[in-house]
């Protein structure tokens, strides 16, 4: 029973990434959207929270914020809105950490 976790807050401004990443298990995936995308920046302090997790980021939100894909930690997948829908469909539940 895999769950998709959505985080839309900056990890430097809210604790939602901390909670989400520590509650994730098994085949769960994490999709970073809106200000949540900042967590995936390589050499940022929050990047350590993503170690060992299946992580995707929403491309349009990255582009809006001027964060190039070359700035991301290795292993992170960039998805578009259609990819977002695919992830929702591929998981049994969606947990949105507002």
């Amino acid at each position, binding site marked *: 029973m895999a769950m998709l976790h959505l985080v*839309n*807050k*900056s990890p*430097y*401004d809210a604790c939602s990434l901390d909670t989400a990443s520590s509650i994730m298990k098994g085949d769960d995936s994490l999709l970073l959207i*809106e*200000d949540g995308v*900042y967590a995936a*920046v*390589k*050499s*940022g*302090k929050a*990047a350590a929270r993503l170690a060992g997790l299946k992580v995707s980021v929403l*491309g*349009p*939100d990255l*582009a*809006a*914020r*001027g*964060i*190039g894909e070359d*700035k991301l930690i290795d292993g992170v997948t960039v998805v*578009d809105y259609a990819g977002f829908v695919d992830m929702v469909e591929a998981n049994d539940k969606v947990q949105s950490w507002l």
Partner: protein
Amino acid sequence: MSDTKKFMYINRKAPYGTIYAWEALEVILIGAAFEQDVSLAFIDDGVYQLTKGQDTGGIGMKNFSPTYSALGDYEITKIYVEKESLEERGLTLDDLQHLVWEDEDEDWAEKDSIRLVSRSELADVLATQDVLFNF
């Protein structure tokens, strides 16, 4: 006695996720018309406001980041960016827009607006201000 006060606008929020950054710019530009001695500080998630290459085409919001490069024309020439906030977020000055102003006393020489400061240097700057606005 001079009516000019030292105004400091402190920006601590990322753009687009909330309206704070955009509203701050509106207030800053209006305030600039009153010929005060204006400084801006970007700390915590506020440093994200200045990243270069922002492209909001995919999220259906207005890209207001080009406005920062117009601040020099409004005689806003002191933009403090906190070093610790950048480093914690894995960013460097190279990830930010190159903001400049033209000095009319030196034949319109182009000068950098951004001053990279440590937290303790920023504390000293804040101590010299008359009015603080927070966004």
